[in-house]
C-alpha cells in the first residue's frame, strides 16, 4: 500500500498496535532534555522507584534559563540556578549525558541535536519542548511532549500515540532575493491559521523546499507547531545526507551506506494521498512580518495594519482588536512605519550559522540605528565559535550590536534577556504571544534579513530598503 513519509516512519516504530480505542505504542529513538520540563519527570521516576530505561538514547543541555553574559559566574537568579543545578544532579544520578554552560556543545537543544549528528532521517525524536518539530527537517518524526510524557519516555522509551492525519504543504516555484525560509513558514501559518494544523503532521514539499539548505529547512519545520501541527517533516535527500555526513554521531563506513540506502526509501510514495493539501507559490512570497499576538497574524512587509472591522469571523475580529490594543497599533498604519526598540537575532528558529551569516551580510559596514539595541545570540556555543572564526562577531560588534553567549534568551525571556513593558521588538524567534519576551513586551516576528535591516533603519525594513 502506498504511504506518506510520516506513515512510513510511524509504522517503522510501532512496538505494539493498539486494539479498538487503545493507541499504538511507538518506540522513541532519541530523547532530548532541558532544565525546564524535566525536573518533575525525574522526580516521578524516583518516587515510583523506576530506572531510566535508555540513558544511551537520552541527552541533555541547559538552554532556557542560561544567561547570555557573564556565564562564568553563578546564575544570579536563584530560582533559575536551582533549576539548572537540579538538571545537573538528575543527569548525574541517572547517567544522562549533559552539556552544561561553558561546554562547547551547550546550546539550544534543537540546535545541538542536529549539530552533533544525533538527528537522522527516519528517527522518532521527542523533547519536552514544542519546537522539537525542528528535527523533522531531516525526515524524522519529531514532536514536543509534556512532562508526564517525558517521564513516560524515561521509564519505557516509548509513547502511546494515536496516528496523526497528514497534510501536504506544497511550496512550488522559487524564492525571490531577500525572501527566506522564515517568510515561507510565516506565510503558511497566516494561510492555514494557528489551529489549521491541529491533529496533522505537515509534510513540506515542492521545489522551493527542495532548494532550501538544511538549516533553512529546520526554520520551516521549527514553526510547524505555530500552525497547531504536532510535527513537520521534509523528505531526506542529498542535501540532508551531505549535512549529516562526518558529524560526530553520523554512521560511517558500511553503516553509512546501509543508512543512506534506508534513508532513500523515506519519501512519500507517488500515489499516496494526504488527508489535506495546501499550495503556496514561492514566486509570490515577499518578506513577511507579524503585526499581532499570534503567529498567524502576519502580512507582507509592504502591507498596512489590518482593520478589525473588515474581519468577518467574530472570534478573529475580537482577537485582532485585542491584539492591536496590546501591540499599541492603529489600523491602516504601514508596517514599514513601525519603530522598534530592540532587535533579537537568535532562537531555535533562526540562531544557526547561516542565519548569523545572512544578517551579518546585511549589517556589515552599517550601524544599528540610534535608540535601538540589537542582541545577537548564537543557538549554540559551537555556532558562536564558528561565527567568531568567520569574523561575524566583529561585524555585529562594529555595527553596535551585542554579541552574546548561547541559549534561548529573549525568545521567551526566562533569563534576564527581556523586553520592558511597552517595548517593541523585531525578533527572529517563533512566538509573538502577549508577554512572551517580557511582561508587556510587543513582538514582531521577522526573518534574520529583516531583523538586520530593521536594526539599521529602526523601523520594520527589508534589506532592499537599505539601498534606497
Amino acid at each position: 500500500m502506498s504511504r506518506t513519509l510520516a506513515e512510513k516512519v510511524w509504522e517503522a516504530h510501532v512496538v505494539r498496535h493498539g486494539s479498538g480505542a487503545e493507541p499504538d505504542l511507538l518506540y522513541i529513538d532519541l530523547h532530548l532534555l532541558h532544565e525546564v520540563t524535566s525536573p518533575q519527570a525525574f522526580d516521578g521516576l524516583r518516587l515510583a522507584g523506576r530506572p531510566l530505561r535508555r540513558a544511551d538514547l537520552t541527552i541533555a543541555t541547559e538552554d532556557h534559563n542560561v544567561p547570555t553574559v557573564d556565564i562564568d559566574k553563578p546564575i544570579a537568579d536563584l530560582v533559575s540556578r536551582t533549576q539548572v543545578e537540579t538538571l545537573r544532579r538528575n543527569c548525574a544520578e541517572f547517567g544522562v549525558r549533559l552539556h552544561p554552560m561553558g561546554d562547547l556543545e551547550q546550546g539550544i537543544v534543537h540546535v545541538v541535536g542536529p549539530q552533533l549528528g544525533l538527528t537522522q532521517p527516519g528517527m522518532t525524536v521527542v523533547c519536552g519542548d514544542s519546537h522539537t518539530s525542528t528535527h523533522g527537517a531531516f525526515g524524522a518524526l519529531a514532536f514536543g511532549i509534556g512532562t508526564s510524557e517525558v517521564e513516560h519516555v524515561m521509564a519505557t522509551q516509548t509513547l502511546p500515540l494515536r496516528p496523526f492525519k497528514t497534510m501536504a504543504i506544497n511550496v512550488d516555484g522559487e524564492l525571490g532575493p531577500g525572501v527566506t525560509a522564515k517568510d515561507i513558514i510565516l506565510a503558511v501559518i497566516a494561510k492555514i491559521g494557528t489551529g489549521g494544523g491541529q491533529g496533522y503532521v505537515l509534510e513540506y514539499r515542492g521545489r522551493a523546499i527542495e532548494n532550501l539548505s538544511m538549516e533553512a529547512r529546520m526554520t520551516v519545520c521549527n514553526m510547524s507547531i505555530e500552525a497547531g501541527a504536532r510535527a513537520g517533516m521534509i523528505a531526506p535527500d542529498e542535501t540532508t545526507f551531505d549535512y549529516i555526513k562526518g558529524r560526530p554521531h553520523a554512521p560511517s563506513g558500511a553503516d553509512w551506506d546501509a543508512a543512506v540506502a534506508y534513508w532513500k526509501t523515506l519519501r512519500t510514495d507517488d500515489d499516496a494521498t494526504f488527508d489535506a493539501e495546501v499550495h503556496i507559490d514561492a514566486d509570490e512570497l515577499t518578506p513577511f512580518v507579524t503585526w499581532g499576538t499570534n503567529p498567524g497574524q502576519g502580512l507582507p512587509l509592504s502591507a498596512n495594519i489590518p482593520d478589525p472591522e473588515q474581519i468577518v469571523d467574530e472570534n478573529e475580529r475580537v482577537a485582532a482588536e485585542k491584539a492591536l490594543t496590546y501591540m499599541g497599533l492603529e489600523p491602516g498604519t504601514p508596517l514599514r512605519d513601525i519603530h522598534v526598540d530592540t532587535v533579537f537575532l537568535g532562537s531555535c528558529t533562526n540562531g544557526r550559522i547561516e542565519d548569523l551569516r545572512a544578517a551579518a551580510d546585511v549589517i556589515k559596514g552599517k550601524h544599528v540605528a540610534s535608540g535601538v539595541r540589537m542582541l545577537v545570540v548564537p543557538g549554540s556555543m559551537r555556532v558562536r565559535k564558528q561565527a567568531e572564526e568567520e569574523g561575524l562577531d566583529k561585524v555585529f560588534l562594529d555595527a553596535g550590536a551585542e554579541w552574546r553567549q548561547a541559549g534561548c534568551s529573549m525568545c521567551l525571556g526566562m533569563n534576564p534577556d527581556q523586553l520592558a513593558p511597552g517595548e517593541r521588538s523585531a525578533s527572529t524567534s517563533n512566538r509573538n504571544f502577549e508577554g512572551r519576551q517580557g511582561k508587556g513586551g510587543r513582538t514582531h516576528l521577522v526573518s534574520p534579513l529583516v531583523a538586520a535591516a530593521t536594526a539599521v533603519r529602526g523601523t520594520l525594513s527589508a534589506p532592499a530598503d537599505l539601498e534606497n
Partner: protein
Amino acid sequence: MDAFTTHTGVGVPLRRSNVDTDQIIPAVYLKRVTRTGFEDGLFAAWRGDEHFILNQEPFKAGSVLVAGPDFGTGSSREHAVWALMDYGFRVVVSSRFADIFRGNAGKQGLVAAQCSQSDVELLWKLLEAEPGTPVTVDLTDKTVRAKDLVAPFEIDDYTRWRLLEGLDDIALTLRHEAEISGFEANRQTWLPTTDPLPAV
C-alpha cells in the same frame, strides 16, 4: 491520578480565542522544580487587571473553564495544566484544543471537553446572565449540563477510560515490557546512541 466520573462546580466564561500557554502561565513561573504551587502563575498577566473574570465573584471559585477556540496553543509546558488544576479547575470546555495541551490534560486528570462552538456560546451567555450557575461535567455520558442546557462533548475513548479508572499510563505501558525489549533487539545497529564519543 484520581479517577474522574462527574464534577459540578462554578463555570467561568472566558471569552477569548487562542488562549496560548504563555497566557495560561508565563515562562517566569516555570522555574520551579516542584509539581505543585503553580496557581499563582495562572493567567498571571490578566489577573493584574481587576476586571479580569477570575477577579470577580463568584468566578474566583471557578472549577469549569469555558473558553474560546484553540485553547492551549503554543509551548508544550505541562505547567499550564498544573496551574489550572492547582487553582482548582477540573474541566476546560472549548470547541478546539491544541494537541499537546489536550494530551497533557489527559495525563493529569484535567478533562478537556470539546463542545461545539455554538454550545460554548450558549454556556457563555448563561454564565454571564446568571453568574455562579453550577455546571456539571459528566464523563460517563459525555455531557456538560447547566440549568436546561445539555451540551454533548467529545473526548477520545482511551483517555476517557483512563480518566474514569484513574490509571497511570506508565504502568499500563510496562505491561508490554516483553514487546518493547523485542522491538529493541531488532533496531538497526547504525542508529545513533548518545554515549560520549572517544576524544579525537
